[in-house]
């Protein structure tokens, strides 16, 4: 139950430490990375975010983007190289983890192997609460919530992965911490269990009512769990917003490509301005952008030129119209009621999704791999990005 404020927080791993890791991890060739300087490796740069009380924030981004580092700085496990971190309006940069009153669920659970489940959960309470009865009551309550009451006397080694995961969560919620930190807690579960746990986290969240910071690289988890999502890349925040905001108005091509499955398609196109009218051109296809979008473009003083045109796979439709672009149909992937169709246009790959479930309950597929067909999309479905910077031209 607390707000968390990060002001220009950054983390630079000193060169020595960085060299150690690199030797172990030869696969990732980050030598040419812009994050690397003589000062060290900038894992997180200028991270500013105000997390409100009881908000559920999800940090999401590809591997190595600095999510865990950010989380560990909030927990106090990693020193903050620059900037300020406040928990409940108290500057905590120099405060030890044990005095921050945060709880954390580790990606690999990190249960204490020599203790029973009961003691694992009670461990943190023993430092804070004197009364045995009180501890017992809280442990049993947490175990009840997570459905692990019957395992309380077991040691972690005799539990399954999903049960260990619950114990790890139980250990965190039992304390009723100010801030709950979770680092990819579901990433080690199989798909089915993951979906189940995701749902349980949603209910859990309503029950325990505290501030959450949740790290994941799975955008489904991010979209379903988060009040707000923070999308990161290379140590920088790319965008912060509600799931709907980041889906509808991605700040740049990275966010647009990251949120939504299958990925948004990107085409090379050009934009022409004629007074208050903007026209997008791609091969034989052209369309005026919508009125509202045009107003925003004009407001941003966009003059036109080469752009990247983004279109979600669901927005592409087949057409007979002349005003269209032609593409070769590649592989078809039947997903059930919908089909993913891989297209190739001007040497660029794209993907479209259409519903193929007819009213009679039968699938209706008349796409032939190898054939060339015409496609178009609605003008409201177009996202326009700067060719150089990748920025969304409408925001």
């Amino acid at each position, binding site marked *: 139950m607390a707000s968390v404020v990060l002001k220009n927080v950054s983390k630079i791993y000193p060169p020595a430490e960085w060299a150690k890791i690199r030797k172990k991890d030869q696969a990732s060739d980050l030598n040419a990375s812009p994050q690397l300087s003589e000062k060290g490796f900038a894992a997180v740069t200028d991270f500013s975010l105000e997390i409100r009380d009881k908000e559920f924030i999800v940090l999401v981004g590809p591997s190595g983007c600095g999510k865990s580092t950010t989380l560990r700085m909030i927990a106090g496990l990693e020193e903050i190289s620059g900037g300020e971190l406040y928990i409940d309006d108290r500057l905590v940069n120099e405060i030890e*983890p044990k005095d921050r009153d945060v709880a*954390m669920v580790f990606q*690999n*659970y990190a249960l*204490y*192997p020599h203790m029973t489940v009961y003691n694992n959960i009670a461990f943190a309470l023993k430092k804070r609460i004197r009364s045995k009865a009180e501890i017992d009551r809280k442990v049993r309550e947490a175990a009840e919530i997570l459905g692990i009451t019957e395992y309380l006397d077991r040691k972690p*080694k005799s539990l399954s992965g999903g049960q260990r995961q619950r114990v790890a969560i139980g*250990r965190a919620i039992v304390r009723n911490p100010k801030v709950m930190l979770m680092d990819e807690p579901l990433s080690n579960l199989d798909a089915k269990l993951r979906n189940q746990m995701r749902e349980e986290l949603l209910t859990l969240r309503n029950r325990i009512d505290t501030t959450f910071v949740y790290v994941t690289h799975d955008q489904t988890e991010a979209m379903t769990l988060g009040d707000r999502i923070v999308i990161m890349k290379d140590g920088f925040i790319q965008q912060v917003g509600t799931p709907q905001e980041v889906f509808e108005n991605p700040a740049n091509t990275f966010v647009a490509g990251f949120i939504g499955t299958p990925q948004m398609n990107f085409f090379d196109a050009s934009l022409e301005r004629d007074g208050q009218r903007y026209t997008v051109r791609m091969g034989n296809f052209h369309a005026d952008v919508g009125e509202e979008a045009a107003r925003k473009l004009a407001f941003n003083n966009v003059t036109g030129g080469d752009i990247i045109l983004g279109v979600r796979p669901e927005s592409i439709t087949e057409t007979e119209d002349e005003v269209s672009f032609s593409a070769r149909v590649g592989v078809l992937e039947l997903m059930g009621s919908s089909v993913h169709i891989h297209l190739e246009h001007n040497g660029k790959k794209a993907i479209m999704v259409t519903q193929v479930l007819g009213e009679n309950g039968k699938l209706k597929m008349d796409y032939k791999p190898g054939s060339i067909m015409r496609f178009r999309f609605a003008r409201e479905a177009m996202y326009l990005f700067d060719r150089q910077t990748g920025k969304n031209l409408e925001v």
Partner: protein
Amino acid sequence: MMRLKTKNAIKDTVVSIIAIAIGLIIIFPIIYCVCGAFKTESEFLTPNLLPGSFSYTKNFSDALRKGDLLRYIGNSFIVAFFGTLIRMVLSILAAYAFAYFDFRFKNVLFFLILGTMMIPGDVLLATNYLTISKLHMLNTYFACMVVSFVSASQMFMLRQRFMSVPRDMREAAQIDGYGDLSYLITILIPICRPVITTLFVHSFINLWNAYLWPLIVTASKPAMRTIMVGITKLNSWEDENYQLVLAGVCISLIPSMILFIIMRRNMRKGGMEGSLVG
């Protein structure tokens, strides 16, 4: 199929025979010692291995009476137990610091400590003796133990073990509100119990069996002798009585064996299973 089986059987037999032979060679002195301890004076001069009867216990009672062995056992116990205890505490704390903390000159210090393992202990005998005598600490328990308070090899082994415990363990404990010392006591030591017990037993037996150092620092006060020194004094040039010495040796073996048997259960492998994902 059949041939493979016979081949394996032959291999097993050969290996077993060799192992038994080596085992016999190792244990023979002890068998000889136990048998000799039950022999009468005249039996001892015959070449027979076995004594006439295992009910002849005069050697044991003589040894206990003549040499004040009980007092020596007590001395040895104090020296070996507290010496080991302090050694373990110091090794564990140093190993923890080297495993988890970052401080200046850490690597230099670490290699300096490891370097001391290269120096044979006997080389230091004279200088250590001088130090102890100048401090007027000869003939004390402290003098007997002090040279064994620090052990570079134990520290090194513990550090390696500590470093194999995932860092997450410590971080989880930190977040749960535990500082370094309470983490060490409530989590790290229990997890590493097999190694620590093994080192404890090993160290205890070493200190129990120490001979040269206790001999020279207790030379002028017989009451402070340890058992190993005391046993040898059972035999003097005017009264050669080896059965008595062997009886003394048998008695001296008992505490180490009891300790080993008690601790054996704890020395099993294990520790981390179930903590992490899998």
